[in-house]
């Protein structure tokens, strides 16, 4: 992220590239980026507003769709003590916002081999003993832009309940805002990721149909089909895609099967 000169025109009618395309006569509002005041069009997201103000995101921006966790932002409204947290690509600017990006937080991430550590909660405790420094202040939960019950899953981990921790943390996007607020210096999101991995590897039953499908793939069942597709022209591929057989929307489960069955 680096700053370039602010656009001279206060409210440009058209912005190009990553810049916002503004409606005619768009209203602007003041926001503060790293303490400096900028006039930005209202209705933009924080990320778009920062780009409008002249910042380029080299890091700290990813999917722009609220799921990659690269653009966590801390903000505060002028005149109030309360800190708020959000994703820059999802949160709309408001007048008098003080903004700071936290694109990365130096949280401890343990090294492990999932095959070697085993499926017991003690494996997580041994890799992240700092879990036991939690004081239940709940700042992590308050900071989460995905509304994850962070204190809830940390408590579950301390109680040895990996399944509960895995389920409670499912919406985590690994942005690290929880860790940035933690007085116990706990890397909540890394511990939760480990819990989900252990849950997937050791606790959830294996899906039998997946096993059969993987065996079929490894046995070369689909090789001919893939080779055929690789030979086709782009036009033919597009035609084939458009004309493909599809399960009708809202079909009753078990009521439909394709006419072509040789790949089943």
């Amino acid at each position, binding site marked *: 992220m680096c700053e370039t000169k602010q656009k001279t025109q206060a409210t440009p009618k058209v912005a190009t590239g990553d810049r916002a395309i503004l409606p005619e006569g768009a209203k602007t509002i003041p926001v503060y980026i790293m303490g400096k005041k900028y006039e930005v069009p209202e209705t933009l997201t924080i990320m778009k507003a920062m780009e409008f103000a002249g910042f380029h995101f080299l890091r700290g921006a990813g999917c722009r769709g609220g799921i990659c966790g690269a653009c966590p932002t801390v903000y505060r409204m002028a005149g109030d003590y309360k800190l708020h947290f959000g994703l820059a690509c999802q949160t709309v600017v408001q007048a008098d916002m003080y903004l700071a990006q936290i694109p990365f937080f130096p949280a401890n991430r343990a090294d492990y081999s999932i095959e070697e550590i085993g499926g017991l*909660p*003690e494996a997580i405790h041994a890799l992240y003993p700092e879990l*036991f420094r*939690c*004081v*239940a*202040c*709940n700042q992590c*939960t*308050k900071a989460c832009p995905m509304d994850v*019950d962070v*204190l*809830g899953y*940390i*408590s579950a981990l*301390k*109680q*040895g*309940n990996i399944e509960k921790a895995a389920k409670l943390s499912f919406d985590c996007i690994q942005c690290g805002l929880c860790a940035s607020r933690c*007085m116990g210096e706990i890397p909540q999101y890394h511990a939760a990721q480990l819990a989900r991995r252990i849950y997937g590897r050791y606790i959830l039953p294996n899906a039998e149909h997946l096993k059969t499908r993987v065996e079929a793939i490894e046995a070369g069942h689909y090789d001919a089909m893939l080779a055929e597709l690789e030979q086709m022209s782009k036009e033919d591929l597009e035609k084939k895609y458009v004309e493909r057989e599809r399960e009708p929307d809202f079909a009753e489960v078990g009521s439909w099967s394709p006419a072509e069955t040789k790949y089943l």
Partner: protein
Amino acid sequence: MKISYYPGCTLKTKAKNLDIAAVASLEALGVEVEEIDRWNCCGAVHSLTADDLIHQVGPVRNLIRAKEMGAEKLITLCSMCYNTLARANQIMKTDPVKRDTINRFMDEEIDYNGEVEVVHYLSFLKEAIGWEKLKQQVKVPLTGLKIGSYYGCTLQRPAEVGIEPFGHFELMNDMFRSLGATVMGFADADKCCGSYQVLSSAPGENSASANIINTAAGQGIEALATSCPLCEFNLGKQQQQMLDKGNIEQNVPTYYFSQLLAVALGLDSELCHFELNDRQSLTLLENKNYLVAA
């Protein structure tokens, strides 16, 4: 009758034998036990610095969970949980300045003013069931078991939250008398086992624990009962190492009081999870023919 219950982290893993036996016993005695929702760690030790409130937030949050469920009483088993919850509750009841600060900090929670009473399991057992009625429910009297009630520190100290006055061990003693056991005098009943000092001493080298086992053995106690997973770890799980290192002279099997309660009530011994105790604990009960299988 229904009662709200706070188990504590260790009771869900390494001290399942404390938790499951206790809950099953209460249910056998006709009490419905309801674990509170979304509970978190109590903090294990009460913060002793005058200006530190953040460490009260954890226990208070659990009391808020109980209040939200409409509970008037919250029972706990683990001595350390009992102590931290009861002491935090006392602050919320008696210190309006600290209470307001804590409530303001937890702006995502409802206000709490000490509405819930924190009660230890043993006190609840006496009050809700009573020793006479308990006696009538005993299926397997623990006849001939020379038991020492070990309270450790946090059930009795400080006095404001103690389950009974210093030097009195009547709750656990009366329970064991009702179960038919022989209650022995025990000079170290409220001596500390060394607690969290287990982190700073080598296995089996904790002098406080060794002294307690030696006193118990010297007084002819053949089984020690506790209410705390850390006491059980220091006195029970470390015992073989204490013996190997020559710090104690003989073994004294250790139990959670709830395991012996469940045994006397004739509950399935599987519920007591003796596999989590030292092996000698199970052997003693087997030799005395107390155990009932399903």
